[in-house]
């Protein structure tokens, strides 16, 4: 499996996937910096909650959609599936490796976002010390939020990846991602929406702690079950 992972990671070299993973969290960090400048001075706790909420509310769902499409198009674009699936290797390994790569990329974006939040704080101390959030930088809280968001996003990510791989056209995956994000934005307030995969990441910063725990559990469990079903389905279907 390590070989499969190495091969999958190498395919990302010089690809738009890496650009996306770098740009998406950076946009949120920049936006957090702008908010800090324009708003009255906040505590780091509030700033962190706002920044991670912004990420999970719609940037993460949209980025996950784009990520799934771009990763799938690495094979769809040059019609490389035939070559891969004709090789004397178990097909489930190919799909499992790709699924793991996507999970790790989403995790990397969360880590990058956390580091960039700190960078925003350090830059603020140099440039506009009066606008820097007060208190110590909450590393533990940030790790908890972003780690939980990563776990809660797995259900959504695996669904989007499944659709992106199943159809050669990117349109079904894009439609699913946009629809899910629209639901998440429009209906976030409703209690029942925690069961919608696109709402699970943002539920981590909801006021109700039980909702956050439920979102994390559903996201991780849903992600694992969906990835197993996806691997089973794609490995069996005709190329």
């Amino acid at each position, binding site marked *: 499996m390590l*070989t499969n992972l190495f091969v999958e990671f190498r*395919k990302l070299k*010089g690809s738009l996937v890496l650009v996306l993973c770098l740009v998406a969290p950076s946009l949120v960090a920049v936006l957090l910096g702008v908010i800090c400048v324009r708003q009255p001075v906040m505590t780091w706790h509030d700033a962190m909650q706002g920044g991670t909420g912004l990420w999970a509310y719609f940037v993460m769902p949209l980025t996950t959609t784009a990520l799934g499409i771009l990763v799938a198009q690495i094979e769809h674009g040059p*019609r*490389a599936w035939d070559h891969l699936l004709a090789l004397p290797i178990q097909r489930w390994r190919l799909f499992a490796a790709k699924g793991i790569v996507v999970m790790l990329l989403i995790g990397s974006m969360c880590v990058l976002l956390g580091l960039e939040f700190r960078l925003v704080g350090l830059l603020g101390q140099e440039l506009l010390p009066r606008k820097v959030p007060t208190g110590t930088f909450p590393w533990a809280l940030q790790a908890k939020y972003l780690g939980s968001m990563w776990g809660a996003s797995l259900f959504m990510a695996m669904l989007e990846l499944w659709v992106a791989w199943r159809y050669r056209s990117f349109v079904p995956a894009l439609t699913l991602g946009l629809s899910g994000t629209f639901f998440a934005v429009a209906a976030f307030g409703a209690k029942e929406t925690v069961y919608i995969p696109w709402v699970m990441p943002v539920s981590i910063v909801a006021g109700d702690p039980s909702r956050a725990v439920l979102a994390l559990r559903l996201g991780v469990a849903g992600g694992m079950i969906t990835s197993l079903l996806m691997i089973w389905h794609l490995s069996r279907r*005709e190329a």
Partner: protein
Amino acid sequence: MDSGRDYATKAIETNGLGKRFGSQWAVSGLNLEVAAGQIYGFLGRNGAGKTTTIRLLLGLLRPSSGSVRIFGHDVSRHRLSAARLTGSLMEARATYDNLTGRENLDSTRRLLKLPARHIDRVLEMVAMSQFADRRVGHYSLGMRQRLGLARALLGTPQLLILDEPMNGLDPDGIRAMRAVIRDLPISSGVTVFLSSHILSEVQQTATHIGLMHDGRLVLQGPMSELLQQVSPELFIRTTNLPLTIKLLQASGYQPVNDGVGVCIKLGSSDAEAAVTNKKLVEAGIDVIELTLRQATLEALYLQVQTAEKQVA
């Protein structure tokens, strides 16, 4: 069956192979036989079922009927065993443009768990060593085809399945690809199964052919034997074409006038050409050109296609 090629076992054997998409049979009742060491040209017009057959051979599609055996391994039941003996080139563009040629090959090599030296070996086989460290995005189509062939050759397969390997190649590329393919059975003992639209190329490359028509295999066998079924043609250009046609018709031929000269099909003997020439001269017709055209794969192809259309 261990490492060596088993000459008693057919490289490819299909029995009543069929594939249905909805209510439409793309391929039906296919009984392919490709012996080890052959270069088998798989012919047919677009939509005849060639690519579907190749996908069935590679286990990318499941048969609706019948079976596929690669060196005795049933592809439906033992795909991995069959795939270990097979290399394939399905689509020239199926490479990662952002990686170099060497990295593309290395990805497949790693998945096949082969030593690194295999990359240089296959690069040399397709004369791509000097371009190996260039990004594939900068390759020409011909270079991509050769890289695809190199990738198919990783793991020293005993059977190579190539779908339209000459597609999009310039004359130099075609010549180079032809040389590589023709050399494979001799240098590496590889059996080659290739589909192509370029009949002249298949005639120069293949030892055996199979012809598909509407999802059925209508002709199969050694090239030399099958070409004997096609009559040679005699092209005649004279100073008096109308009289030439009359004379040929009187002799029992059915001349085809192409505006410049006439063409007639000869019987089994080439001596007919001399007899016809003599008749024309004796009739006072000046013969400007008399060309004997040997049987071609194209003529065989057209003959079979016409016969099939008449049956339909």
